[in-house]
């Protein structure tokens, strides 16, 4: 239990938590529903941008309210994820394109040989 009773803190936190949870869930649902690999990558970035952002802000608000001062350390996770996300995304995208090309080339090779 957080022990926060002020509605000025609690209402934004509740809204942020619900929004963050729903965004994460919809993003993960995209992983199941979207038809191709490249399309699925867009769904995943929902959870790691706005979904994560909402929950991080809720976390900063709660820990600041509990300590009675500004506690920004949860924001470090956002900074870290924003800096690192492009590396993973670019590598995965290029890996998928490379593997699709290699597969089709191998398929053609097998046809001409057979």
């Amino acid at each position, binding site marked *: 239990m957080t022990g926060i009773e002020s509605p000025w803190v609690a209402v934004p936190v509740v809204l942020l938590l619900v929004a963050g949870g729903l965004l994460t869930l919809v993003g993960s649902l995209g992983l*199941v529903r979207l038809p191709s690999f490249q399309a699925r990558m867009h769904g995943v970035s929902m959870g790691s941008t706005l979904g994560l952002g909402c929950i991080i802000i809720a976390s900063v608000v709660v820990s600041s309210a509990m300590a009675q001062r500004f506690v920004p350390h949860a924001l470090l996770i956002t900074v870290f994820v924003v800096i690192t996300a492009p590396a993973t995304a670019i590598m995965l995208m290029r890996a998928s394109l490379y593997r699709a090309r290699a597969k089709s080339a191998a398929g053609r090779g097998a046809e001409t040989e057979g």
Partner: protein
Amino acid sequence: MSRLIDYAAWFAAACAGLGMLLATWRVIRGPAAQDRVLGLDTLYVNGMLTLLVLGIRAGSGVYFEVALLIALFGFVGSVALAKFLLRGEVIEP
């Protein structure tokens, strides 16, 4: 009001947990190797979110450190797997 935050935190944790299940389905189902890597990537992001939400609920700072470590190691793991798919090697000479 504190109870309301508690319910909202449970809701968010349930959403992230369900997201982890969906990601696990993608990891098992595939079909391509990059789909599985993407599933693992989602899995660790959702796991990190679950921990952050539990940290909010418990009002404790310990969860934050675990979440930061998951973010660090999850990133290194995803990049290593993606690099392996791209080049067949993680650390090139």
